[in-house]
């Protein structure tokens, strides 16, 4: 049989044919994809690094679009934008009609500066989006057209999203104002003001419209209102949402969990979480959180160590000195050591040199009261009330603010800022006469108070104008 030449020639021929077919198949076989890109993660803190590696390993060997998109999301959160871009590219190949993939590719393209690609992907995403997400896609689309200075397309995109997405409506109004099409912008701004009367950005936009119409008095009113407005519309919604997303990963996730423990009164667990995060990478925020937990737990000595290291590494601030002083005060009580209280006072005195004070004047007032030094106690008590009042004024808690300012000037009638803000409150309450008196008092105390002088002069002008406009009663 071995010698049967014909038989073996036939077998060989079949083999050659089979091999040709096999290699032909290999030649023509579909492209085998690479695993997802793996960035250099050496810049990450150990906690984030470890989590990123886990998510990466889940994506290796899979051809699931959602998994690759999720990896792209993590890469975006950690700033690996080119790697995220590649992941999205492959995910889109796997599932060309997946809204989440197209939307995220748009986000990545936006961050990486591939503006045309971002426009392409947000357009595709909008076509695929559930009704509730179309407005958001239009908003991002409009923003990217703005980056290309393609104002016509930007306007179209904002218009498309205006009905369902607040940020798109605001962006449309803003664009129209900037294009000097104030008449078209006004109804949109009015609708925004009706829905969000305290939105600082809408109020600022309304002020711009008033200025464009040369109605400076109306503009001033909108500016005053915006001073107490609330940030309901973010100037960069994408950056804002990415910051929120970052808290779902790695070290930040740990910090959020620790904060949740802290808010439930589990200070020990919270401290452990913050401490782990801080050991993973030292940061001023984590050191601060650890110190605050030490205070809650009564670990004053430990808290002092953490705060002193924080100050050595990141400088003094009013809050750090305030809490450091408090730690010394409590330690002085615990150890019955009056010298520690002196240290606390030194820190609190130092804290008053800064802006952004919280309770430090109150602590000093209590201390001096205990010492029987009523003058100093009153001085600090008045300043504490004034600080509180300004904070409440900014937070639109006007009745509380008024109470605080009245209490402040009762103790120290020479507090010019308190008079100024009492005048502002009177203006809000539509009481120009009382406002004028308070501005006047502020100027008597601080003759160079520019804002008080400007407001008083406006009030005088308005009063003159109104008296000129009033019919003169006949004798």
């Amino acid at each position, binding site marked *: 049989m*071995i010698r049967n030449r014909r038989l073996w020639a036939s077998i*060989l021929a079949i*083999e050659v044919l089979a091999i040709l077919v096999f290699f032909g198949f290999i030649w023509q*076989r579909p492209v085998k994809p690479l695993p997802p890109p793996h960035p250099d993660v050496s810049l990450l803190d150990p906690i984030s690094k470890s989590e990123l590696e886990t998510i990466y390993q889940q994506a290796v060997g899979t051809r699931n679009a959602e998994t690759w998109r999720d990896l792209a999301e993590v890469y975006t959160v950690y700033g690996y934008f080119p790697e995220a871009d590649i992941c999205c590219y492959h995910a889109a190949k796997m599932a060309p009609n997946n809204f989440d993939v197209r939307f995220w590719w748009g986000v990545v393209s936006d961050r*990486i*500066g591939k503006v045309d690609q971002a426009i392409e992907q947000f357009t595709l995403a909008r076509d695929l989006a559930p009704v509730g997400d179309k407005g958001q896609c239009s908003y991002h689309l409009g923003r990217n057209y*703005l980056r290309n200075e393609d104002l016509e397309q930007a306007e179209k995109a904002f218009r498309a999203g205006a009905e369902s997405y607040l940020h798109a409506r605001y962006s449309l109004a803003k664009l129209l104002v900037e294009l000097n099409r104030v008449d078209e912008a006004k109804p949109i701004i009015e609708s925004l003001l009706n829905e969000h009367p305290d939105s600082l950005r809408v109020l600022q936009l309304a002020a711009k419209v008033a200025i464009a119409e040369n109605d400076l008095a109306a503009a001033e009113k909108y500016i005053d209102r915006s001073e107490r407005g609330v940030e309901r519309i973010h100037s960069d919604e994408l950056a804002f949402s990415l910051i929120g997303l970052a808290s779902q990963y790695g070290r930040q996730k740990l910090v959020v969990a620790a904060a949740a423990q802290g808010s439930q009164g589990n200070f020990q667990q919270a401290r452990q979480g913050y401490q782990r995060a801080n050991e993973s990478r030292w940061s001023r925020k984590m050191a601060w959180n650890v110190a605050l937990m030490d205070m809650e737990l009564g670990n004053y000595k430990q808290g002092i160590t953490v705060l002193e290291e924080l100050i050595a590494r990141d400088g*003094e601030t009013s809050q750090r000195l305030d809490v450091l002083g408090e730690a010394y005060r409590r330690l002085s009580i615990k150890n019955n050591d009056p010298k520690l209280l002196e240290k606390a006072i030194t820190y609190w005195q130092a804290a008053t040199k800064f802006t952004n004070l919280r309770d430090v004047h109150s602590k000093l007032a209590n201390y001096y009261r205990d010492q029987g030094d009523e003058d100093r106690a009153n001085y600090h008590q008045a300043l504490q009330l004034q600080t509180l009042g300004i904070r409440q004024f900014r937070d639109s808690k006007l009745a509380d603010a008024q109470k605080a300012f009245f209490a402040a000037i009762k103790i120290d009638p020479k507090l010019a800022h308190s008079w100024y803000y009492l005048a502002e409150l009177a203006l809000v309450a539509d009481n120009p006469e009382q406002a004028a008196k308070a501005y006047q008092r502020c100027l008597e105390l601080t003759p*160079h108070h520019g804002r008080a002088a400007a407001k008083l002069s406006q009030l005088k002008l308005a009063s003159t104008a109104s008296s000129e406009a009033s019919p003169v009663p006949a004798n």
Partner: protein
Amino acid sequence: MNKHAQSPKKGGPLLFIAALALPALAYVVHGAIPPQVVEDELFNGASKFTPSKHQFEASSIGPDRNTPPIITNVQVVDFNNDQLTDVVVCDARKNQVLWYEQTPDGKWQEHLAADRLVAPAHATVVDLDGDNDLDIVVSVLGNIWPDDTDVGRLVWLEREGDKFTQHILLDDVRRVADATAGDLDGDGDLDLAVAVFGYARGKVLWLENHGEGNFQEHRLFYASGTIHVPMDDYNGDGTLDIAAIVSQEDEEVWIFDNDGSGNFQSRMVFKTFNYDIGSAGIVKSDLDQDGDVDLLLPVGDNLEYMLSYPQPYHGCLWLENDGKGNFTDKRIATYGGVYAADTGDVDGDGDLDIALVSMCNDWKQSDSASIIWMENDGQQNFTPWQIATNPTHLITVACGDLNQDGRSDIVAGRMNISPPLDNTRPVPVWISTGGAQ
């Protein structure tokens, strides 16, 4: 016939062996064929340039830190009037204003001008009280991070011999980013223009000097994000005007034309609808040396998201003044994450070159440029040359002749708030030594 009948049998063993060997060979060859893949090409948005042929000697001012530094401003000035150039530094990590005295042997001696100023953003060196020594007006942010509360201040460090006395010129105000001095109302004393950057709310002010450290504020403009307010005669009418770069909600440059008595008319001279261009400041300079004051606009602030990425429109724009205060904008550099610019004759050829530093280049790539200089050919055609790739995260720059050789040297400051983090070279220096590589 027999021959023919026997011949198949003769070749049979050979064919038998071949029939066995061929599949084995095919198996081996198949194993050696690499998998068919398409390499992914990563997008690369980092800015890198040709290394400078003009030589620089790198050094640094001040000691390394125990935490990544946050230097917000550097100024090159002969602060003690000894004919040697000194450097004034705002340190927002230590909350201090420092000045580094250059000694005759070229070393730097550190002096503390002020502390407990949270996040000083800018030091304006000026003889504010006219007593023939240089004081410092410090613009205090109060918080380096986004904050819309009244944490800002304007503080005058009055120089009295070797000591400085702090006077608060403005408080109950949001984050203050810049101040400049000049006689705005023609009464012979120095008034101030102030940029209240704030965050979501801010304003531009001018402060009228009433003497003895008393200043009255006047609001010129209400908008958040004003970074710099350089003062000069932009419209050529002989009085000081104010320019302002507004960067938060809008990307605009405004001029406030002064009638000489402190009455201002505002006008916008530049605007882009590209909200993401990232205006990072404004620098006045007669770049083309035609006798009027032009403006340089470094663009590349991308810090709304901490892990930023260089954008294709980052770089530097030149707003060329026609002498009457009308400006034409021209792009003169494309460079990712640019945060500051200054002009100086770096190569000593008589024209003004530009130093640009980057805060937000792609630092994951170690060869991304952190500082470049733009060589002027005398006709305002600029060629970019890379000076260094590290230290990274440079946020402020100033040109000045540190070694009195007629060429401008470059001093920068680092704001190292994102990886890669390191504690070294808070204030890097590049001495222009010339010569080709």
